[in-house]
């Protein structure tokens, strides 16, 4: 077994075990209401942490284009309530802005 494969198997173990533990050990029926509220708040907290600050530099070399992409995603979501469409709109706008930037239309890069 190569060193690379050993590394990968070890990575799998340390990734899979945290994912698995709560399914095996956590008894959700007996959780305190505050603990349940905490756990149900996690998705919002997770999304906030995942979007900021990472999303601001999602497009290399351009914070303005990244922010524009995020704003378009939000607006499209509000308007269409459709995930796929909104993501597609965001990618399209980013592609357009990058294309215009590279052609020299404006210096927002």
């Amino acid at each position, binding site marked *: 077994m190569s060193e690379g494969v050993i590394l990968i198997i070890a990575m799998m173990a340390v990734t899979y075990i945290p994912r698995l533990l709560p399914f095996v050990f956590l008894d959700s029926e007996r959780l305190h209401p505050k603990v349940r509220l905490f756990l149900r708040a996690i998705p919002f907290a997770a999304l906030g942490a995942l979007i900021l600050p990472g999303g601001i530099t*999602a497009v290399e070399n351009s914070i303005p284009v990244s922010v524009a992409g995020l704003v378009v995603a939000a607006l499209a979501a509000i308007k269409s309530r459709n995930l796929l469409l909104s993501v597609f709109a965001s990618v399209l706008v980013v592609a357009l802005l990058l294309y215009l930037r590279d052609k020299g239309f404006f210096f927002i890069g």
Partner: protein
Amino acid sequence: MKNTTEYNETFLQGLRDGLPVFLGYFSISIAFGLLSLSSGFSLYEAILMSMIVFAGASQFMAVQMAASGAGTVEIVISTLLVNLRHIIMSSSIKEKIASGPIPPFVIAFGVTDETFSLGSLKKGTLPNRYFFGIEFVSWSGWVLGTVVGVLFGGIIPPLVSTSLGIGLYAMFVVLLVLGVGRSFRALIVALISGGINTLLQHLGLAGGLSIVCAMLGGAFAALFILKEEEGAHE
């Protein structure tokens, strides 16, 4: 007793609803495939990693660490730290998933930021096979993209791959907007968490650790902000 057709439909519905994740993962894992090759991993190692680790952030980090000469032990410890947040996500989503034919040890494997976000913000209990459908299509996207990346990555136009970089973040934004709905308080929780994360990273804390702290901090703040019925629904 549900019949087989209903079970199959639920799984297929999961596959369909997970398509945005498939697309996002597919684009990003192409970049991973490319990066791992240039960091000295073999084609098979890159694909194996995507198949059995299935955790984007830590995979990117691992190949970059390997490229700069880090040892196996260091990489594994970093992977553990970055991926600890999955404990929180599994704890959170476990309540939402109905028991069913797919065993917990299989469902657990597919818990990622994206499958978690998608599953958490859907209203009501998630049928077992439905969530597995989401996980499976997501995993497929991740693995297929890696394969494409190691085989063909060199020929994708830079404009395309750079634009796709916004895809996953766009998905997070959309999920947040749809999940928050009219709840201004839920949005505040997300902003607090994002703020904590930004601050911690600015102070030099490693990404994996700062995300865990931000998630915990934001959820804790939520105890004082959210009303009982405003958390992601079970």
